[in-house]
């Protein structure tokens, strides 16, 4: 599309805020927050607008922007979105917009720097979802990972230095391995056409020998899989969640993990035969994610650890959906990425709200909070229901689609995976019972409920999104579907051929 560079604006809005914040005095907290809110609100409004102006009938990559960056090596600043990216961009906007408010409440020192890193990270995330150039894809991917280091290291809770180093190194290792695979693609594609370019559209339009595809898909799967996190490369994730401040956990579980799944989808699109070869493995590993994550979540007493492991369990469903390689399964996976992103952001913001006052997150430290903080209790219950896949909330639709898709391809896996829901329901309901119900404790008499506009806004907003998508999923599914159909068709054609 000529003219209005909507994608660049969405991405540059947080980046512009970072540059603006460089020149703001630390003490002017209101201005700092104002800038952060204004920039994320702009991105959110534009992302919503994008959802409605994206041409679902036409499908494919739209709003393409391309500027030569390094001419001699065929690198360009090349943006474009398909249905899948549109949904992911919207998710990112929702989570960061609410995250800014959560940080308003939760972050008390070095506020300006906190917002700078947070917004830098988000710019990276937007970039990954929009890039059609492999170099920029990688660059943005790293830009999304590296700010995690100071974000957890400076504003995190217990064990933060270990957690942040572990996380940064693990994710960077994944990125480096994926980079080697991407570079190999560049040279193989260039040798075929004689034109060396990092243009993803160009590289994906060629066909490669199956042996090569199988070989190169592996580093990409590993590289992006680490971020999902695909078992057994998940150990960085729960420690990172637990140590991170609330807004960072929200982004981390809500959005960053989706980068990994998104990367895998793109790799599948480029290397369909390689994907077909490895997908049964992914399906198998996804069960480990679902059950191992679920079981560990059940055994955790720290609520953040519980949600952290629960996230890797839920990402198992996403992986299972992706591995089905059929239209309904992949649609379900992408919708679940969205739904889980919103749900888990809600979970971390709620836990963060309680932790900031109580300074503990241990389930056994609490009892009967519903009497003291009814609003938080209700929001937490809705989150728990969403997480357990109750109808009426977005996660139900998504998980249902994943299961329907999985029954077609991997019936045994699907039957096993369904029991994962019971595991989820068990720890969610138990946590709710122990923390919010039963007898109230005296020591929590001073606990304050979310009462101000700033405190309530993120919770209400996230719940509203879960409900809207739960009752009217086609607002998203239609768009996602326009991106999924060509992808699945290409993969199925590769299987036949």
């Amino acid at each position, binding site marked *: 599309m000529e003219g209005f560079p909507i994608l660049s604006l969405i991405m540059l809005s947080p980046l512009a805020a970072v540059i603006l914040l460089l020149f703001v005095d630390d003490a002017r907290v209101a201005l700092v927050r104002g800038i952060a809110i204004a920039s994320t609100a702009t991105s959110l409004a534009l992302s919503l607008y994008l959802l409605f102006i994206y041409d679902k009938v036409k499908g494919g990559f739209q709003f393409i922007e391309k500027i030569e960056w*390094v001419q*001699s090596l065929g690198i360009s600043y090349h943006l474009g979105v398909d249905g899948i990216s549109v949904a992911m961009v919207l998710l990112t906007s929702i989570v960061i917009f609410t995250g800014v408010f959560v940080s308003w409440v939760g972050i008390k020192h070095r506020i300006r720097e906190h917002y700078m890193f947070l917004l830098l990270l988000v710019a990276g995330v937007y970039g990954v979802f929009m890039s059609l150039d492999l*170099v920029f894809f990688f660059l943005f991917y790293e830009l999304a990972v590296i700010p995690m280091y100071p974000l957890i290291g*400076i504003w995190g809770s217990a064990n933060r230095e270990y957690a942040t*180093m572990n996380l940064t190194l693990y994710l960077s290792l994944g990125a480096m391995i994926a980079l080697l695979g991407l570079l190999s693609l560049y040279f193989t594609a260039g040798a075929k056409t004689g034109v060396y370019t990092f243009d993803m559209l160009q590289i994906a339009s060629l066909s490669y020998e199956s042996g090569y595809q199988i070989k190169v898909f592996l580093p990409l799967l590993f590289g992006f899989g680490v971020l999902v996190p695909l078992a057994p490369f998940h150990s960085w994730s729960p420690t990172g969640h637990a140590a991170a401040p609330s807004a960072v956990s929200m982004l981390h579980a809500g959005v960053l993990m989706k980068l990994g799944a998104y990367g895998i989808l793109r790799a599948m699109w480029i290397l369909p035969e390689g994907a077909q070869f490895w997908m049964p493995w992914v399906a198998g590993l996804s069960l480990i994610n679902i059950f191992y994550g679920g079981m560990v979540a059940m055994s955790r007493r720290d609520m953040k650890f519980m949600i952290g492991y629960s996230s890797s369990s839920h990402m198992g469903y996403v992986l299972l959906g992706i591995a089905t390689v059929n239209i309904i399964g992949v649609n379900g996976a992408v919708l679940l990425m969205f739904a889980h992103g919103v749900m888990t952001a809600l979970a971390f913001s709620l836990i963060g709200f309680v932790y900031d006052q109580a300074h503990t997150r241990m389930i056994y430290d609490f009892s009967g909070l519903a009497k003291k903080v009814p609003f938080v209790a209700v929001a937490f219950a809705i989150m728990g229901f969403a997480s357990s896949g109750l109808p009426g909330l977005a996660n139900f639709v998504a998980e249902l689609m994943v299961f329907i898709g999985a029954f077609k391809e991997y019936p045994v896996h699907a039957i096993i995976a369904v029991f994962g829901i019971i595991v989820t329901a068990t720890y969610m309901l138990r946590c709710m019972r122990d923390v919010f119900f039963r007898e109230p404790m005296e020591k929590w008499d001073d606990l304050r409920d979310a009462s101000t506009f700033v405190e309530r806004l993120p919770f209400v907003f996230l719940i509203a999104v879960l409900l809207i998508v739960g009752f009217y999923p086609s607002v998203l599914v239609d768009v996602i579907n326009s991106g999924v159909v060509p992808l699945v068709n290409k993969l199925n054609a590769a299987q036949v051929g």
Partner: protein
Amino acid sequence: MEMNLFRLIPEFIMLGTAFLLLILELFLPKGSRKAFGVIGILGTVSAAISLPYQDYGLALAGLFVQDQMSIYFKWLFVISSVFVLYIVMLYEDKINNWRGEFYSIIVFAISGMMMLASTNDFVSFYVSLEFVAICLYVLAAFLSDSRVTSEAGLKYLITGALASGFLIYGISFIYGATGVTGFAEVAKALQGVEPTGFVLIGIVLVVIGLTFKISSIPFHVWSPDVYQGAPTPVTALLAAASKAAGFVVILRILFGALGPMKGEWMAFVAVISGITLLFGNLAAMPQKDLKRLIGYAGIGSAGYLLMAVAAASELGAGAIMFYLLTYVFGIIGTFTAIVVFHNSEGSDLVESYAGLYKRSPLLAFSLFIGLLSIAGFPPLGGFIAKFYIFMAAIKEGLWVLAVIGALMAIVAMYYFLLVIKSMYLRQPTNPAPIPVDMTTTGLLYFVNAATILLGVYPGPVTDLVMNIAQGVF
């Protein structure tokens, strides 16, 4: 036999400046020599001004060549020279018994490096190399009343002399096989010839001899001690300019003169690169002294650069040139900050940097940018450079090397993040702010901006180096 001396004008300007400084030393009373730094910088700037007016071609009857590549590297040396001289001016305050020769020897060393960039013959190469080496031996041991410095200087001298021996021995073998010493003539003589044992021994010895200057295996041992013990401006000179000089020589000799034999040395260089990568990065992990840490990290960087050498392609040559530019900026920013910090605190230990972000946001930020660029974090220049090196390696199918490089990049992240952690995550023990004067502030801003700009908009420089690389073989 054309002499074409005007092609040596930049070198002459530098040499003239150095002699002027030597003579002035005689006439001035003892005391501060800061004016020498200014004169040195002015001389360097005049040499820089003459660079764009240089035409390409041979000089000194073919011993010397002026081409795009030599001009590119001379720019690197000129930039390093200005900043190193400036760092000396900062450093001088803290040293008793300061002697003005320090400035002139640095300018001599830089002029030697500029000649190295233009050597076109094994004879002129060896002479220029020794000229630079002798200057650096003196500089490394300049603080003769410090035991650490004396030890560092001695180590540097002994390993350097040994490496020179390897080089000259190797060169004699190559001369024996070809009967010529000019790089172009050697390449011509080796074109299409089956390699004899004579040539192979020559190549192996030359490659080993060259590893001294770039501080890679097997002549790396001097590097941590000298980086730690030498006066900090000298460490900066060794890290930035001297390393670049080593690699321009490698491009001239391995790619140029011995290019036809690349099938023979590629695997050898690849092995050296792999071991260097592993050693430098792993040994850097437990270091407590920042200068020593950078010394080991410098070995690691040599490993990456050798990875591009092992690729033996135009892309590899371009990657080397890009890497060195980002490296020069990274090192300069880092060492300027180190000197300012040392002047105030008297320590180079990583732990003494605790909470630096509170005491001097600018110093902390400069170290942040400099170190992370060397480590290869996006979107800084060093990242793009490392990216190009990986490209070159993958293109030639050097998968094992690329995977080692990828793993070691993570190790490098680890030890540089430890420094960042100390600066940003810890609280200072002494909260007094560290003052940074106006000129230093300006220079640091400039260097940081250059590092970021090379990462965000690498297009023009990339196009330039890739164009230069076309003629490297």
